[in-house]
């Protein structure tokens, strides 16, 4: 689907902005909003690029830089932290051979941190493309990553 088709699905009003951003992000394999897209959105909605950019950079769900096919978000808030027999972030960094904020060489994963994702009762937890994975263990993470790799292959 073209960006313009996405835009046309929404009323040309400021209130559509976040939904449009999220939909474009979902639509693109590299999950980011480009400068051209910011300009197109701002023109369609009749708002300034500064406004689109401000909203876009406010939410950690969204990105102005190309990302991996799958976005892994690790909760960095207290319950996950204290429930943590092991360090989810470090484990992921090791398994993926990269640090938070980076994208794996094969373009498959981007690793990010996020504020609480509401899974405190089943901590530690992470999101992959907004799908929650809870009660994480080292093995479980290994299996989850493998399943994403398989689907892509």
């Amino acid at each position, binding site marked *: 689907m073209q960006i313009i088709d996405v835009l046309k699905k929404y009323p040309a009003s400021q209130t559509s902005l976040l939904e449009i951003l999220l939909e474009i992000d979902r639509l693109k394999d590299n999950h980011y909003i480009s400068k051209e897209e*910011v300009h197109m959105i701002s023109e369609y909605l009749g708002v300034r690029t*500064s406004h689109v*950019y*401000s909203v876009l950079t406010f939410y950690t769900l969204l990105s102005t830089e190309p990302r991996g096919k799958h976005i892994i978000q690790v909760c960095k808030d207290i319950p996950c932290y204290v429930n943590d027999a092991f360090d989810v972030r470090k484990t992921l960094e090791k398994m993926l051979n990269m640090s938070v904020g980076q994208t794996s060489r094969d373009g498959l994963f981007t690793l990010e941190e996020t504020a609480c994702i509401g899974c405190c009762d089943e901590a530690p937890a992470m999101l992959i493309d907004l799908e929650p994975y809870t009660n994480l263990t080292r093995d479980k993470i290994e299996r989850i990553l493998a399943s994403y790799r398989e689907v892509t292959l």
Partner: protein
Amino acid sequence: MMNAMINNVSVEVEDGLTILEAARKYNINIPTLCHYPELHINSDCRICSVEIDGRKGLKTACSTPIKDGMNIITNSPRVLNARKTITELILANHDANCTACTRNLNCELQSLAKNLGIDINRFPSVLERKPLDLLNPSLVRNSNRCIKCGRCVDVCKNVQAMHVLETMHRGHEMTVGPAFDEPLNDQTCTFCGQCANVCPVGAIMEKDNTDVVWEKLHDPSVYVMVQIAPAVRVAIGETLDHENGLISNGKLVSALRHLGFDHIYDTNFTADLTIMEEGTELIDRIMNGGVLPMMTSCCPGWINFAEQRHPNIIDHISSCKSPQQMFGTLAKTYYADKSNIDSRDIYVVSVMPCTAKKYEATRKEFRSFYDIPDVDIVLTTRELSKMFRQMGVDFDLIKEEPFDNPFGITTGAAQLFGASGGVMEAALRTVYEIVNKKPLVDINFESVRGLQGIKEATVDLGGKEIKVAVSNGLANTKTLVEQIEAGTSPYTFIEIMACPGGCIGGGGQPYGTTNDVREARLASTYFIDEEMVCRKSHENEMILALYEDYLDEPNSEQAHHLLHTYYEARK
């Protein structure tokens, strides 16, 4: 009315005040940082925190309404400690090299730190240096000094309806600037400088051109002439420990001579000339079915706004150059001719209340010869004040002297150009008398005076009532422009000034331009007008002589060639 206690003093104030407003009524000082009169309260900085009996945590005085029976403490150790900590944290992320900043001793953050007694910062610097934006002729953005108060965002978005500046990212990574942190000249910025005027620190400032002016003043091979705009003289005194903002023409001329200018002229002269040209153009448009409403063209912030955002209404804008540019052209043509000086040896400096004028002077249309700008460089009121301080000019001791001629004799009408509604009033004084062939009974057009955003008046021209309007601030201007676009504008003539209050509230004026300050500058403006012997542009003898000698008559071919311009759509 309600009763409350502040620092154990009982206060009685009207309903609906914030704690800050109530305290100020009783001369109880609560420090603030992000707060600015006339802008939105966003309680970002939390410097105005106070304790309220029975309420958990500290509350911000700027945003908390005072309630009956409240017991407020503004200076407890807890409050003072919080303020100090906040300020230290701000300073830890601020380029606090104060002596290398133009705002030294005139900076709201510096004064706050001093008043809170911060002699040493407990927090190490976490500043990550970013490059400066130096790419436009008007403004410099130095985000290393930005304290994220949000004032510039508010003024740009809400007062000017431009929305060039915004907050980006969040939490401790939050920054302020244009989208993608691009330079201002990649954005549709008008260079109005309102952001620079409200910035509490030196994070947005005019591009400082004082060095090049000093250099020219010390070069004996160059004739350095200066023109000074009407709004500068009613404000510059504020920066010079003068009893009020107004410095008399006589003292200004003498002080400018002290700095070493060879010739000292008055932009008011070409303001009178503008009235002759623009008034004649208006009459012509009315008589000959030209595009109406006609809109004024002397404000470069407005011209930028129109060219960038509303190019479809460009035909409505008068083709007259601004007074600054008319002066530049006359200096490099008429004056050079008459005095047999090569125009390349004349250096024209303008002193303007405006940062957009710096940009205006660089426009390619404003070059009469050799691709050299007619106005070589523009200084703001603040920069001139800096030069006076550098030279140690004492305004109490200085003598009065008149402006030089041929561009020194002016009228009260011209002085009005500094005020919103002033160009309209000056034009009406002239147009009325020319069309109706009789003197105006009352030459004061009170209805177009004052700080109101949009003002209207009705005038009888040749037996026909015409409606005129005046707007100041670009958000108000947008309203009038949209009427024209919709074909519903009831007006014949519209005056537009980009800055609130007109040039007296320009982006290059002294800091602390609040409505009270604007009112004082307006009062000085109308005072000067009243004091002038001649108060109508078409009665300025020197202007009439200039037409006789060089320009033929208003809107003649020669006048058109020298004094008019054109506009075009820009990105």
